[in-house]
């Protein structure tokens, strides 16, 4: 972790922002005008990039989708997003990002006490104190080609054929010889 911090200042900034957001008691839902509420949240993708398959955490290609396509919004450079003019009720937020698996999030917008946040991941029923969405895992869309090994050659039909031939050629005479001796 320390090495990553040293190598790039971005995680540090993200961390500071996170602290900041804790301090300033961001309310994920704020009441707007009479006709609706605003849901504010944030998508956090820490690109580990270790595996080589995970795409860089580019926020410009991430979409945040409310209620299966009712509204679609995009991320600001700092990862924040907002939905405006949302009615009171229980809503579903999904994040579409190639290379990452995000759990959909249920968000309760309550009309009685505006500003109260109730959010939970629907995949594992984990509650969220803040609307910060993080990928559950990275997704690898390709099979990884196994490096060449003698075994794979042996496993191939030709390899099996060769193996069988070798057995017949060199082991069989011995077996037959042994049998002859027994007899």
């Amino acid at each position, binding site marked *: 972790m320390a090495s990553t911090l040293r190598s790039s200042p971005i995680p540090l900034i993200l961390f500071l922002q996170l602290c900041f957001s804790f301090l300033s008691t961001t309310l994920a839902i704020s009441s*707007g*005008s009479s006709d609706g509420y605003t849901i504010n949240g944030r998508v956090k993708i820490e690109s580990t990039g270790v595996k080589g398959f995970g*795409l860089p955490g580019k*926020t*410009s290609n991430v*979409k945040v*989708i409310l*209620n*299966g*396509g*009712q*509204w*679609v*919004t*995009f991320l*600001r*450079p700092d990862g924040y997003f*907002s939905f*405006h*003019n*949302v*009615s009171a*009720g*229980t*809503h*579903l937020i*999904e994040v*579409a*990002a*190639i290379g990452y*698996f995000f*759990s*959909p999030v*249920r968000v309760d*917008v309550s009309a009685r006490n505006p500003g109260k946040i109730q959010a939970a991941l*629907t*995949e594992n029923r984990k509650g969220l104190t803040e609307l910060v969405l993080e990928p559950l895992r990275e*997704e*690898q*869309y*390709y*099979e*990884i*080609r196994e*490096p*060449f090994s003698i075994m794979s050659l*042996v496993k*191939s039909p*030709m390899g*099996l*054929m*060769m193996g*069988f*031939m070798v*057995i017949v*050629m060199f*082991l*069989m005479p011995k*077996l*037959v010889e042994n049998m002859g001796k027994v007899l």
Partner: protein
Amino acid sequence: MARATRVFLLLLLVLLSSPSPSFSLYEDQVGLMDWHQQYIGKVKHAVFHTQKAGRKRVVVSTEENVIASLDLRRGDIFWRHVLGPNDAVDEIDIALGKYVITLSSEGSILRAWNLPDGQMVWESFLQGPKPSKSLLSVPANMKIDKDNVIFVFGKGCLHAVSSIDGEVLWKKDFADESLEVQQIIHPLGSDMIYAVGFVGLSQLDAYQINVRNGEVLKHRSAAFPGGFCGEVSLVSSDTLVALDATRSSLISISILDGEISLQQTHISNLVGDSFGMAVMLPSKLSGMLMIKINNYMVFVRVADEGKLEVAEKINDAAAVSDALALSEGQQAFGLVEHGGNKIHLTVKLVNDWNGDLLKENIGMDHQRGCVHKIFINNYIRTDRSYGFRALIVMEDHSLLLLQQGEIVWSREDGLASIIDVTASELPVEKEGVSVAKVEHNLFEWLKGHMLKLKGTLMLASPEDIIAIQGMRLKSSEKSKMTRDHNGFRKLLIVLTRAGKLFALHTGDGRVVWSVLLHSLRNSEACAYPTGLNVYQWQVPHHHAMDENPSVLVVGRCGLGSDAPGVLSFVDTYTGKELDSLFLTHSIERIIPLSFTDSREQRLHLIIDTDHHAHLYPRTPEAIGIFQHELPNIYWYLVEADNGIIRGHALKSNCILQEGDEYCFDTRDLWSIVFPSESEKILATVTRKLNEVVHTQAKVITDQDVMYKYVSKNLLFVATVAPKATGEIGSVTPEESWLVVYLIDTVTGRILYRMTHHGTQGPVHAVFSENWVVYHYFNLRAHRYEMSVVEIYDQSRADNKDVWKLVLGKHNLTSPVSSYSRPEVITKSQFYFFTHSVKAMAVTSTAKGITSKQLLIGTIGDQVLALDKRYLDPRRTINPSQSEREEGIIPLTDSLPIIPQSYVTHTLKVEGLRGIVTAPAKLESTTLVFAYGVDLFFTRIAPSRTYDLLTDDFSYALLLITIVALVAAIFVTWILSERKELQEKWR
């Protein structure tokens, strides 16, 4: 010996049985079987960004709600964003030279995107009391405290927004005055703006507003007793011209220091002999405006003191660009006219009609239709004169860049709005391949395989690897224009919203031919044509082999369902429109029948809104075949608005239209009325007509047999509580439910009914063989769910006894009739599914032997292949040993999402709308085509390619093995000979 064999067999088994997901791809296999094309749709607005050196680009917004930045040199997409379906782009502009500003959702969402990479910089939500016209104005040189201000009129309010961070600086509510702002005028160099608009129909108001704080400095209004029709165009910074309510005179309005003066001019005085209705064309030409009258386009110049004069009168099949400011205070505009198979592009100065800056004739494919829009941009040539480039949008929605009398690039953006797809065969290969070609191929073939062998043995150098990759991608085999043995090469016949038909080659996705259907073009005979469907009309395979296959394109002249229909027949080899028919009746439903005539033309029945049936093709032969089958033809109509499903049968020839022997009257057989207070029809799904089922029997554990209830006449219907038709979050679980039905469409019998409490739509469903899978939202768990229903025929269940079969006491040969009451049992099960779904389909193979996969288009615009085995109602938590052997997966509460089984791998099919599958000739393989704004094609093998060697099969290794074997035989032979000799000597 025996032991050795056993050991060997065991080894073989262990080596061969390695489980893995059924669809998976290695990274280096991308592009071998799949192709992906990116489009944007019909361009609505375009803004050029060419001032600075470096990348020249044009930013466009389209009717598919896409905003994109295109490379001006090649037409490639730098970046692109597809906004939500309810988020139509109203206007775009560029601010500060680095941000693209978009106003969308009827003037309520303002976003700024970084021009180089498309990252969203800020987003502002503009609120207002009521919906209104929306207007975006980005003054180029207005600075307030080093900040450029953007003015937006939307939802009845005028907003001033900072272009740096999107903060709303001030807001002026015009809703109380009910002012519809038409223009925002910013006189150069001043720090105030004029907002000019109509109040009601006959009053014009002008507000002078301080830019810094939104304070109204002056308010003037002028009434015009005749009334305005609402169309207005800004002619100069202080003059507007509006059309009056009768559309017969123009009113020029000048605003000087906040004072309004009106001046009326009759159009007949201007144009002369005109009695038609004038329409003002939206234009941004300074000192000029355009009106359309009697098929003419009239350019009207506004002289001093609001006097109007006609500058030019041209034919109306032309497009005019906005004015473009040249450096010396001059303005130019572009004009495109048609003439023969050429288009004439002229760039003129606004204040000098005869001063053509540019006059070019460019040859244009007539399949592109008329020019719909033009955007021009200038550059400075090496001799310091002005050069112009023009971006034009054609009738078929394609986008072209014209420069120096040539088409620099073109994009087929009509393909972003596909309505329907069907697959068609390619011509059979002709005999006669030259020997030289074969020899050359043989050498190439060997060379290729040596390279591949090197690759597998990890001996290949980096250059070799590149060569291997290039060879695999290019492989001329896959893009040939003939039918192949495996049936991978086909034509995808695609109908787009522009009324253009494209044939795409499945090998590489190129457009083989395209035709702008004459019958689906806007004309006198057919206004507002809309395409509906494409059907296979003629598929010659037994008789009539010398005829080309053709497709039937069905359309409608007009927007309502009672509008008269249009049929068009297109040859799929050549792309020629063979025939077209303007029908006298409307089209409610089209039923392809299972009969063909001697020319292999399929009989189609078209039902009109009056429930008359019309038979096509209109030949005596067709009527002969049809009369014979008349009593066996049933169909149903779903009246979703009334909540009724009705079953019909044919009666006799029409009574009203006597003499029309192709028209038939129908009678009602049955009807199912859903109670309107508790159920509303949401989705109906049937089986695909051309689906093949291999066997009706399903062998389950302990050698037991179940018989699938396979019927072409089953209809799946999903209804929802009327309250729950809205979006998620609008209802509570208690007041929402979903009811699903399986209905026999011949008798109207309900075979299955199930209520899901606390759930709501949208419902996506697929119906295949004897099962239905549907996707819906569970409000209690707040997750999506997928259910499977399988239906089995119980009347045949007692045919298991071998003795009965031997003695002939079985009912397997008894006729199956839809009239008999079926004894069916249904099994169902449901599972959670993570994602929202946009489209769903099922794989289809030639013989129906291969197991099925569901293709699910997720909300992230990816296509997931999910084995049907996961949706098996016989799954239990602890399957018994025999069930496990049968392949039953232990029950889990949610369906797995395995990233390797995304058929689109790392690609997205932006704006995904539909997935189409077609069987290949090879039983293991299905062709999959997913379309939306993007197109994606691949072929998948749900049970792996058990009947085909994989692409990376090394023939060279096989050859080497054979050579080695032969060598070994010789060696052993020699050895044995020698040994025998020694034995004899002994």
